[in-house]
């Protein structure tokens, strides 16, 4: 059988899942909609953003929330030359882990920096909100350099 003999066909897996988020993520997403970022605080005092549903050390349910800053520090980054469908920005941007002021863990999001030369580990970035917010991680449109 020749190389081209097997039949092939396009196939699309398409569906819209409906996720219930539970109380902890619900609070986080409600905060985003209101323009506020909240993390969880563990018994040992560690602040996680996004919040964890449980204490990372003990496994106990999260009960304490802390509002953190809307700006923070890039702990590491990469540069997406050709953004893919669904990603936060259509033009080239940086993926970054961002430790928000007051948080002990870093959040993954995009940074609209224009060019990779503008990116640096340790730089400060701030939230750019979506104009219309619905209560989703995408309510944060992206981050942008704090001082241009």
């Amino acid at each position, binding site marked *: 059988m020749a190389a081209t003999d*097997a039949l092939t066909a396009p196939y699309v897996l398409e569906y819209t899942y409906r996720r219930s988020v539970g109380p902890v*993520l619900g609070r986080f997403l409600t905060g985003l909609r209101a323009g506020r970022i909240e993390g969880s605080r563990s018994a040992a005092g560690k602040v996680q953003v996004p919040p964890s549903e449980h204490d990372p050390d003990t496994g106990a349910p999260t009960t304490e929330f802390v509002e953190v800053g809307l700006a923070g520090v890039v702990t590491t980054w990469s540069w997406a*030359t050709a953004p893919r469908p669904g990603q936060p920005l259509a033009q080239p941007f940086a993926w970054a882990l*961002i430790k928000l002021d007051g948080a002990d863990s870093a959040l*993954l999001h995009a940074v609209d920096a224009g060019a990779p030369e503008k990116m640096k580990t340790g730089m400060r970035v701030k939230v750019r909100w979506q104009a219309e917010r619905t209560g989703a*991680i995408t309510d944060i449109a992206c981050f942008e350099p704090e001082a241009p």
Partner: protein
Amino acid sequence: MSPREIAIVSYASLLAVPGEPQRDEVELLLPVVTEAVARSGIPKRELGFTVSGSCDYLGGRPFSFVMALDAIGAWPPIAESHVEMDGAFALYEAWVRLQCGDVDSALVYAFGRSTQGDLGRVLAQQLDPYTLSPLWPDDTALAALQARALLDRGRVSERDFAAVAARTRGGDADELVQRPYTVAPLRAHDRGTVADGAAAVVLAAGDLARKVCKRPAWIRGIDHRIEQHQLGQRDLTRSVSTALAGERAGVGKGPVDVAELYAPYTHQELILREALGLGEGVEVNPSGGALAAHPLMVAGLSRFGEAAERIIDGSANRAVAHATSGPCLQQNLVAVLEAAP
């Protein structure tokens, strides 16, 4: 209770080359299973346990492992299990099953037709569904965060990444490092070539292994560990789960001749070498590893098979096999294989 002596006694694999006729899962797997079983010298009907690894998302339809059963001829009925993970974790399940003592051999297989979809988008489904996957980060974007963190830590450079690529898949490191970025600081050669493939391994215990194989690859230690999922909660420059699994498997108890490490990205090989304490003298990924060909769900089991082959063919006495799963080396499995039980 000291663990029972278990060895890899045979291995076979098939990587589909682009442009070949398009085999389906069964057609990829059937010759591989047939060859591994034939090489083991154990009649198929006598194998005590069968376990496989695969993932539905590679083809986008549920129950892919059910269709693949035709490749093994499960009749009369067989004692069988399946993990929705890399086949290396299926091998771990088989090892545990053999430790129970009532069966002496097992067939482990894996298949993955990873080229059917856009792997970058497919792997985004692996992430926290509330805060990560809605952003659709692709695997390269995340691996590049890890690579940058490693560069920032110092001691390694992008040229070191290129050197890993040059060693395992050919090319000149100085030339490779001049090429354009895909997702900076990574370039095309830093990511494994996505491939379709299948692999199978036969395990046997004690005297049966000695009977069917001249130099069985004895599993002297095996362990796996998982880490936090959120990248922002880990030190991405170190693989603590690999270090712990390696320690539990006994990697440091003797000299290592060869290591087959499942590193889908060049910089991850560097992180894994460090976590396992593998010095300059250790030959790493003579097979080309997951960089030369990266069939998901198969690449980990292949590392076990390739490492075992080096023991079986007499070219190594002590080997390390490693498999990973998840974004940026979240989960890691390590085994030590030796010529002497």
